[in-house]
């Protein structure tokens, strides 16, 4: 504990030198922060012992140990929740169109196009990227993410003109997805042809 106290006082010096407000320094030195500081030190104790001499050869490994990891559970939870909600919304549209008396294939097509349009509008208002900040794959994997990937560069490169900006850069993010999608679908089609003899 002694060493911890020393460290915080040393940081205090720097804060003073940087002339921060007292309130901010209080925020930095709150008890929770101190505990956090101590716990991280304990965490990296064995790592520090392992890397007593950092060299060009083991630097990458050292950085990997040192760098903070994104919490998979939290990311997965948000992705599941948001992705699921988007799918529920899509299903709701399908049910609505069926209730209105639309034939089944048309209802599916219309529901997905409504979702695409909604995502494009929300991208324009700057809401969809806020969603993507914490939802991750939950907002990129559904069809809405594809819409976002086309509209975002289109908005961004509009100022370079309609042809060299918007036209050229529109598929900057979505382009690789389309190319790979087509290529993989060809491969899968060939495999199914092999196994089912073209009947399926």
């Amino acid at each position: 504990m002694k060493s911890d106290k020393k460290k915080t006082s040393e940081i205090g010096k720097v804060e003073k030198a940087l002339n921060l407000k007292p309130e901010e320094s209080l925020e930095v030195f709150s008890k929770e922060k101190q505990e956090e500081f101590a716990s991280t030190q304990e965490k990296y104790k064995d790592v520090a012992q392992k890397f007593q001499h950092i060299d060009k050869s083991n630097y990458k490994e050292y950085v990997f140990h040192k760098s903070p990891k994104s919490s998979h559970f939290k990311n997965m939870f948000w992705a599941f929740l948001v992705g699921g909600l988007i799918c529920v919304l899509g299903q709701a549209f399908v049910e609505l169109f069926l209730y209105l008396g639309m034939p089944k294939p048309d209802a599916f097509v219309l529901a997905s196009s409504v979702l695409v349009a909604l995502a494009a509008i929300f991208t324009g208002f700057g809401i969809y990227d806020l969603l993507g900040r914490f939802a991750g794959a939950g907002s990129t994997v559904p069809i809405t993410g594809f819409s976002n990937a086309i509209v975002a560069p289109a908005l961004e490169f509009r100022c370079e003109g309609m042809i060299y900006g918007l036209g050229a850069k529109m598929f900057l993010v979505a382009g690789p997805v389309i190319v790979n999608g087509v290529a993989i679908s060809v491969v899968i089609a060939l495999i199914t042809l092999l196994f089912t003899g073209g009947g399926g």
Partner: protein
Amino acid sequence: MTQNIENNIKKRTIYFDDVYFSEGFSVVGPKELKGKLGDHFDFALINDKYDQKTFEKAERKMFETAIDGVMAKSKVLPIEVDAILGGDLLDQIVSTSFSARKSSASFFGMYTACATYAQSLIMGAALIHGYYNNVICISGSHFSSAERQYRYPLELGVLRSPMTQWTCTGVGATLLTKNAHTPNTPKITAATPGRVIDYDIKDVNNMGAAMAPAACDTLKQFFSDTGKSPQDFDLILTGDLGKLGKEILLDLSKQEGFDLTDNLADCGASLYFTKQKTFQGGSGAACSAIVVNSIILDNLRSGQMRNLLLVGTGALMSQLTAYQGDGIPAVAHLVEITSSVKDAGREPLEKYYQPKKEEIKMKNEKNAKNNNSKNNNVKNKVNNSKSDSKNEMKNKKENKDK
């Protein structure tokens, strides 16, 4: 181990005689205004676009504002400026060169990514040491234009990695002069230009780890050249290593035999609050420029700080090299800035204790005397420092409140 032999044989530190850091001006964006150092900047944009059509144009206008601002603050005429040195993060350093169109001064474009500010200070100091009288060093970046060039479009919903840094929006301009305008003008005394170091980090999101070895190398070179130790300095300020890079630098420096724990601070890590969700802190060419030209300059002038080492760190990669699987080489330039105030750094900080009534009386008398002497000397009054004008403003406000 070949590095050590090189360090011992070749000295890379250069020394300057009469180079004064006479004025600074900082323009920042809205996010930096809400950050930790928000009160200290000269000029802040309410709107990220600065009433322009595109972000690139906004960045250009910010550069123009900074150049005009630093000239207005120091009362130097546009004709008196001999050269403008600087750069930014955009391709072909467009913002700086376009903003220099309006000026009659010679122009030098600089680029070492986020170390641009330190590099332009070194080159500016060298020019003043040999030839010129007034040189403006400028450096800046804009979040939206840099993000668009280096990463993804703004509106694209992507999950940010916890190792990423936030490119700060801002421009910092410095006027270096051969003659000191005021007695408390800080001085640039030495500099160590860095060399390019590549530890083969390939993660574009983890710039701090790529730049920390370069910073360590330059610091080590400086200490071995001058025979000084980190304890001789009030502050060692790295450019934009971020929180992670700062910790790595601490580890690396301990291994190299000098301890920075007392006085290491990072510009990027000290710009934002954690609730602003910038993860590792700020980065970009503006990062060190806006911090040095605002709070650090104030501290050096008021004598709260005796000297500091500014270590600008730059990651020299482009999108192409990243996609082609190359590592991220990095460079770090070091500048030593010292305060000209006598007994600097020894006075207790006013903010951390409440002065007694007698002391306040003494101070007021002192101030009155100083003001009288200043009124006698017109030139001094003209070049009055920023802190004085701030005090006047505060006094006015207090009077109004009463």
